[in-house]
């Protein structure tokens, strides 16, 4: 008998293993990486009882299909809406459809098929106990560019067999999320700088007043925006310096790029502003074609937003609601009760 695993039938558009990233190695040129939407990752992990930063599958736009190669396993889905189907086996055409933002127990041979994502670009699929993948530099996040971590340092392909830590699911109820806002954000808060002196005051105001569209060239490294170009007042080359996630760099074209989780550690374009850390998860979910605009805030406002987010994440467990067992099980339990009461009556 082989070890418990998920066997990938179709990887979807781009599915990678991600956790909360590997900080501490940017000085070596190693990107931090990690989940584009760490709130949804934490939610997915909470639903299966994993530590908040356990590695999960991050699917972009179109989810994967996979077979359960374990006696049984508990999965959870959190992030964008998606049509998720549980099929009896690889030959089945149709299965049971479930919603996102819940946990579910699946059995050996069943196929999980995740379709196109809606109302967001990112969906996390966590498994109870997590994947049996050794961390690289303290993280299981996939850095496709540096070919580090995750599953063989790359996005999943058909035929990949991802080993699981748990041979079987634990005996417990299933949960769904209720009242946790996982919607993409169309208005994002940002702090001016670090290179705001490469732009006139009028141009900075234009940037914050403007509306942009997330362009098709966007990926895990950066979100490319289309809109009224931003002009530099002293060229668009700076001496390369380090980049923070959320930096909004403005290259020669004047079309801003928001640098996301997989951004390179250093770069040579001026950065007009930086998205605050509390808003990074919400921008990470924003799909291609969405509109986005930026609101200037102070460091103090950013710190307050960060504290609110931390408190919300602390209480993520309060947002989980137990799912009533399926009706067939209820009937079986009722029957069980009746039998017991019948026995009692007979003894009376």
């Amino acid at each position: 008998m082989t070890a418990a695993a998920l066997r990938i039938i179709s990887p979807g558009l781009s599915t990678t293993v991600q956790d909360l990233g590997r900080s501490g190695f940017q000085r070596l040129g190693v990107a931090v990486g990690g989940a584009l939407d760490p709130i949804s990752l934490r939610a997915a992990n909470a639903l299966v009882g994993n530590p908040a930063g356990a590695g999960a599958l991050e699917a972009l736009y179109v989810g994967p299909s996979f077979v359960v190669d374990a006696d049984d396993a508990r999965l959870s889905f959190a992030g964008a809406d998606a049509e998720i189907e549980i099929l009896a086996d690889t030959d089945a055409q149709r299965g049971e459809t479930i919603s996102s933002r819940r946990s579910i127990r699946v059995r050996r041979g069943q196929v999980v098929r995740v379709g196109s994502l809606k109302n967001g670009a990112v969906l996390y699929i966590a498994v109870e106990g997590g994947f049996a993948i050794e961390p690289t530099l303290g993280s299981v996040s996939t850095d496709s560019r540096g070919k580090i971590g995750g599953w063989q340092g790359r996005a999943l392909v058909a035929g990949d067999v991802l080993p699981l830590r748990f041979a079987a699911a634990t005996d417990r109820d299933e949960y769904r999320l209720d009242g946790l806002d996982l919607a993409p954000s169309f208005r994002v808060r940002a702090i001016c700088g670090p290179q705001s002196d490469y732009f006139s005051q009028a141009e900075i105001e234009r940037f914050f007043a403007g509306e942009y569209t997330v362009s098709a060239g966007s990926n895990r490294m950066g979100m490319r925006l289309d809109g009224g170009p931003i002009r530099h007042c002293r060229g668009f080359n700076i001496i390369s310096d380090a980049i923070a996630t959320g930096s909004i760099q403005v290259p020669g074209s004047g079309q801003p790029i928001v640098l996301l989780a997989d951004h390179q550690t250093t770069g040579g374009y001026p950065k007009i502003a930086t998205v605050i850390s509390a808003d990074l998860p919400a921008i990470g979910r924003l799909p291609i074609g969405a509109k986005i605009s930026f609101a200037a805030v102070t460091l103090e406002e950013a710190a307050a937003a960060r504290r609110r987010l931390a408190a919300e994440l602390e209480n993520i467990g309060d947002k989980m609601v137990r799912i009533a067992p399926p009706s067939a099980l209820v009937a079986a339990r009722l029957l069980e009760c009746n039998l017991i009461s019948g026995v009692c009556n007979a003894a009376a």
Partner: protein
Amino acid sequence: MLDYRVLPAGDTALVVEFGDRIDRELNAAVLALAHGLDAAQVPGIVETVPTFRSLMVHYEPLVLSASALTARIGEQVRSLKANTTAGHLWHLPVCYDPSLAIDLDNVARRTSLSAQQIVDRHSAPTYHVYMLGFLPGQAYMGEVAAELALDRLETPRTRIPAGSLAIAAAMSCVFPLETPCGWHIIGRCPVPLWDQGRATALLAPGDKVRFVPVSIREYETLATGVSQGVLRLEPVGDAVGAAA
């Protein structure tokens, strides 16, 4: 005291900028500040990232406020000592054979130098490792002789092999992994600058590097030895005292 300014990069990083040019003294200040802050183990500092003329300090705002960190940086800059941990001096083998140096002809045309003159001039200086960035283990080494300091190609290549040695304006870079690249490729280094298995970088900021030309046959022998794990490059000495 050194002139510097502190710029916010969002709410989880500050940039400490010592100037607006590529300069070994400014870079020494960056590395000394990184060393000082790292050694002080300030609660709330997540990591420091040294670059040519600035240091990015990543912090956890729930533990350390931007103003407290700025004050701490000020104290460190006031007591800045030259970095006492000397870097290493490395002799990096490089093969400039035209079969690997895909832009050598191009560089010869643009500089009116012969291939041999390019090799001689490129391998003459002792380079300073200013920073690592762009890819894991990728070092920015300067300065390239002025007549070789070429700008980007008009059309970047979608893919160059790992180990490619490039002229990137005043810098020389060895790309540790296969990557898209817009710079002139003038050779290849058989020694990996990034150890994928151990996840470690060969070079560190502050190290010194000399490029040692090797023939294509030597290149192949070295590359085979390295890939089989029987050869490993060691530094030849300390960076201190290495001629500029």
